[in-house]
């Protein structure tokens, strides 16, 4: 079911959403960067922007995520979950990020499910903005994560020029529209065709249709990547963990108790498999003491057939963030390319 909303009307729509819950959208800040932030007025929302470096996964999986609260009463303890299930709208995320959140939800739904994450995810409505003009570093078509989505969205907006095409993909999406139904009209056939054409044009923007995930996957999954290649590549990694922090499909974490005035909040905090201490055991033994071992681990998780079979998707949405944030030069395309060629570009 497709609708259309005139561009001027989006202000009213956002107003309505703000009445229903928290609205988080890309906002241009004073230092010129775009960041996903809570908005209190529709004019804060950015519509023409490059995808922010800081990913919106933090809305469902915050970098510091309170899970349970522990209170002490004399010699006795009480524990209770920290509830965060207020209604939220994530507005103007890109296709890759919508796909990323869907991926994370799949991870956290796996038995045993994580109620804390799911409370947030289930009360979050994702309104994504398809990419008419793909970003320069993105490679979303390599994993079916963009530039347009065919499923896995609550609402998908496409910029038609004077208006947005509005595709509703779920009940939550319907609910996001229904509160302001007077702003939306049915899309015409021409408008729907226009959206299809735009998707094709957007895909043509990418230089190569085929991607290298498949061949890299074959080699990684059958242990055919030489140790010497991992070693060489790992010299170009500075273990900053940025790739994990900004990646929409990374979700490694540690659990630590934060003390707060006589109580403790047990928090989930983002972690990185690239950090030496990630697998460091209390005894001092570390099965991945070398950087090359940790790098191998990262790309096995992202690109192996074993994980692909388990999850049904490759662990990368092609958003291109790791290319921008990598302190070294070991971003996804570079490593996948090296694995395919069997050697590292220098």
């Amino acid at each position: 079911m497709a609708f259309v909303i005139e561009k001027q009307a989006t202000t009213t729509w956002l107003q309505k959403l703000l009445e229903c819950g928290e609205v988080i959208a890309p906002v241009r800040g004073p230092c010129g960067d775009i960041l996903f932030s809570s908005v209190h007025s529709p004019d804060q929302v950015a519509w023409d922007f490059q995808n922010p470096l800081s990913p919106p996964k933090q809305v469902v999986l915050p970098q510091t995520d309170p899970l349970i609260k522990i209170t002490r009463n004399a010699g006795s303890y009480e524990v209770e979950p920290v509830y965060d299930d207020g209604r939220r709208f994530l507005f103007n995320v890109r296709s890759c990020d919508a796909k990323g959140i869907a991926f994370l939800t799949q991870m956290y739904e796996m038995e045993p499910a994580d109620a804390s994450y799911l409370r947030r995810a289930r009360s979050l409505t994702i309104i994504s903005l398809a990419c008419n003009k793909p970003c320069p570093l993105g490679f979303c078509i390599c994993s079916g994560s963009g530039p347009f989505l065919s499923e896995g969205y609550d609402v998908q907006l496409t910029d038609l020029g004077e208006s947005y095409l509005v595709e509703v993909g779920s009940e939550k999406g319907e609910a996001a529209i229904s509160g302001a139904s007077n702003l939306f009209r049915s899309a015409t056939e021409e408008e729907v065709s226009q959206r299809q054409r735009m998707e094709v044009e957007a895909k043509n923007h990418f230089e190569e249709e085929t991607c290298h995930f498949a061949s890299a996957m074959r080699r990684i999954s059958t242990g055919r990547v030489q140790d010497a290649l991992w070693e060489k590549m790992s010299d170009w990694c500075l273990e900053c963990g940025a790739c994990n922090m900004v990646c929409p499909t990374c979700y490694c974490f540690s659990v630590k108790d934060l003390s707060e005035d006589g109580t403790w909040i047990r928090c989930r905090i983002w972690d990185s498999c690239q950090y030496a201490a990630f697998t460091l055991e209390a005894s001092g033994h570390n099965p991945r003491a070398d950087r090359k071992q940790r790098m191998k681990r990262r790309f096995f998780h992202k690109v192996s057939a074993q994980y692909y079979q388990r999850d049904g998707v490759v662990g990368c949405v092609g958003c291109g963030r790791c290319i921008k944030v990598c302190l070294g030069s070991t971003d996804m395309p570079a490593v996948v390319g090296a694995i395919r060629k069997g050697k590292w570009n220098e």
Partner: protein
Amino acid sequence: MSAYPTTCPFCACGCGFYLLSNNGQLAGVAPSENHPVSGGKLCARGWSAHEATLWGDRLRRPLLRRNGKPEPVPWSEALDSITGRLQALISAGKPVGLLGSPRASNEENYLAAKFARAGLQTNNVDFSYHSTCRPLLSGIGDVYGDRTPTASISTIESCQTVLLVEGDLAKTHPRVASAVMKAVENGAHLITVGYRTTQMARLSSLHLSVLPGDEGEVITGLLAAVFDLQQQNRTPAAAVGGGYESFCQNVKNIKRTAELQQAAEWIVRAPRATFLLAVNGGHGDQSRKDAATFASLAAISGHPERPGSGLLLLLPRSNVRGACDMGSACGHLPGYVSFDDEKARQRLQQLWSKKLPSDRGWEAEELLQHVSGLIILADDPPSVVPMGQRAMAALEKIEFLAVLDAFVTPTIRAAHVALPIASFAETEGTLTNMEGRVQRLRAAANPPGEAKAGWQVLAELCSSFGVGDACSSTKDVLREITQAVPRYAAVEQLPKDDWGDVLLENSDNPDFQLDFTGSQGVAAPACAERPYVLVREGSFDWGRDPLVYYSPTLSRDYQSERKLFPNGFVEMSKRDADARNLSGGRRVRIASAHGDAIVPIQLRTDLKAGVVSVPYAFRDHLASVLGPDHATAVSIELP
């Protein structure tokens, strides 16, 4: 979800990022693509910058020690106690002093220095890291005066040649390592000098492997080789600098190897080059001379005059430069001008309306051992100064010790009065990075309990000693700084919002005075009875810095190491160990002319043969062996 742009508080690269907070509580970090230094990137420390503020053992209330136990007291009582005790000591003619901090802001360091010099009327003012970096600052200053052609981190990647005297750049300054990597990716020649085949060394076009203490010899050789090429090219730049005549004489006798000549080619032929010098903790005259030689090498290459080329002294901690510039440095006045600079003295006396004392004052390590009263700003000296735990013993003997900090440290536990101040994430202020870039800190959360902004507390202390009014905002402090330090004039224009920064006056046409008197190496080089050189590795222990120590993510490696090796360890080259049939974990007796110690060994394949290294964090366990040196010849035997 709110985002606050601020400057990274860890090393002196001065990256920027947004602190994220939810409902007033810090939650995480977001990178900034627009930031002039970090450009969207951050290292592991940056990504966890919010953690210590949240998870750390925070000082929440002023504490006064009564009957050996710290008791929470109101601010007024704590401040009165400090004022009273210090005045009593001063009246009794006992020496008092103050230590500024390489991790405190410019405003805090400035007010602290003013408090001590004008308020307490003492020049016993220093900061813990100063003695380590001063020789190199002086050495570079011997060549360039106060107009060092400082490189910008962002220009490194477009250089064709990079000369790096290590350190372990990938660990100490990841952002700089990143820029060097990009340069190498673009085809640049990287020349590394050091005793370890570090990550940077593996990426180099040429790694000049040297024993600790012999870096100067290599730099001197390189200098001579560059000189030869410049002679051939008849480059006018080489003739402009002072000291040229004596230089030409001295340089004749230096050995030029084929390797050095190749490196010199790369340096001279490159359109742009960067010269990176790590602070290796060698102290005294030798370090100074080596730094002067390094600066002379850069000067004679002709590069520093060119845009996109320059020198960088790799200071380890975020505000070492700021602490120097703000007057927290012994032997210097604000502006890091010489103590004897009469003009500067007059200016300050006028600004502060107080006459300044005329004796130089003690340096940090001496200060700790001799004062009767001491104020410490945001620092834990035993974890920073080379003398290590002996500094703690000295602190415990001080009659009156007051400490301002956000975090509980061992120094806080020795204090008679502890004042809680805001962490970097909870205060406004500025930091000066190693490029000379002054940038803002912005508060993203409120300090806990009754903690106050450090600058506020120091302004009150100043006022109670009759120096200036309690400042009402950091703007007031900044304005005063521009008057005390003319070089900081432009910082008043730092925009409120935005990644505005001010690059301190850099020179496009630096004058230089060639200074090269040759290298001497370590005091006690390897010999037949003591065939190895033991070196104290690095000059800074990140594991004990509160921003790392209290971060769950960052502290893991360090905690594990300390737990598994309560008596420390030394690293030995695997080749050397195999030749002696020594396996990893084996305890050995290491002995020098100064003394000996028994310690386990860890084997390393990246360590040059003949070198034994003790991490800076474990220097106390080898104190008897090292003596006053940072490197010395040793023998290794089974105990």
